[in-house]
């Protein structure tokens, strides 16, 4: 496609455009189904069986079961749809957003209280800010994976 996509060079950021939307259609439809209490209960009772009712890819199903939101987004999920999974688990938006960074809940909350993540070094891929690919995961996540 010849359409301009200037947003491809922002680190740690996937823009939900028509292409992502096509990729993630059934994943997001599955998420929407969780807006009904009876579906939330059915999903929690047997995640695999519930996921198998949807025309999702195996990769998408695995990402949901692992609650790997970064992976879900790469596979076409959109955060407002994925939030229905968090709601099903009783998680807040702050817990969900934090989970994508590798930081612990407390670390992420403290970062926000201190004024949030700086934009310096995080505008373009290739700079050296804390959101750049070579510096993931952050916080507690980096220690766990580092050893």
């Amino acid at each position, binding site marked *: 496609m010849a359409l301009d996509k200037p947003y491809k060079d922002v680190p740690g950021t996937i823009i939900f455009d028509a292409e992502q939307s096509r990729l993630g259609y059934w994943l997001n*439809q599955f998420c929407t189904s969780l807006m009904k209490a009876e579906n939330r209960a059915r999903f929690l009772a047997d995640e695999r069986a519930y996921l198998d009712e949807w025309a999702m890819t195996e990769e998408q199903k695995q990402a949901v079961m692992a609650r790997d939101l970064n992976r879900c987004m790469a596979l076409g999920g959109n955060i407002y749809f994925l939030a229905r999974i968090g709601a099903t688990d009783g998680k807040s938006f702050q817990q969900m957003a934090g989970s994508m960074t590798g930081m612990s809940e407390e670390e992420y909350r403290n970062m926000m209280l201190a004024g949030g993540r700086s934009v310096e070094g995080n505008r373009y891929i290739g700079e050296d800010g804390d959101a750049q690919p070579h510096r993931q995961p952050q916080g507690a996540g980096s220690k766990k994976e580092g050893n």
Partner: protein
Amino acid sequence: MARITASVYTSHVPAIGVAMDLHKTQEDYWQPLFAGYDFSKQWMKDNKPDVIFLVYNDHATAFSLDMIPTFAIGTAAQYKPADEGWGARPVPVVKGHPQLASHIAQSVIQQDFDLTIVNKMDVDHGLTVPLSLMCGELDPVKDAWPCPVIPFAVNVVQYPVPSGQRCFALGQAIRKAVESFDEDINVHIWGTGGMSHQLQGARAGLINREWDNNWLDLMINDPVACAKVPHIDYVREAGSEGIELVMWLIARGAMADVNNGERSGPLPQVTHRFYHVPASNTAVGHAILENKE
């Protein structure tokens, strides 16, 4: 003739609704944020409008991927607060204004904006949190919002979202529509969402205080230039969800100093302005602008 007398701008962070619903507004974390709205709640009482035209975005609540309207106007008699997965917020049902809404729809479509008309929809935190912030805590059954509300939903979920310029032009069309309504009523127009925030990936939690405040200056003082800010600047500087700010340009475009795409006459009066970090993942911005003769 109906007229737009004021515009209100505010973030609509869902956690703010939760804090109010759970009566946590006086906790250390929340107290400074709600203090910024004390003035606004009094102002709302002193300047009660007849109708609020409320620009917001739906967050995959009323609209799934089955149907994604770029601009949707609610012409229904009422709208229920939505269950977004945590149960519906305990706030009053939102009463609409079918007559003015239909009038605006008709006029704005004839000005070449390709609206979707909606007669059935639940409204999510994007609409109810601004109402709560400006009107305070209300009992869902015994109380009512101070006036009817016309919900106007903008797609900022799936790209491409409408440009700042399109939003700014739409605001002008809405003002024309309101001013051609025969009844002598007082309308407020609200732009909601923003300010800087990113809810995804390794860059989650991004806050750009400087950019936010510069943008707010520009939006107030030079909206024509502000409308030209391209999407990519919002994403790069204010986070992927910072793009919600384009909705503020709809409200700004409806103010009396904007005519034929240009500014003319005195700037609106800045009655109130407030900025705070954080609310959950988000910077919170808020302003009240009034048309003064």
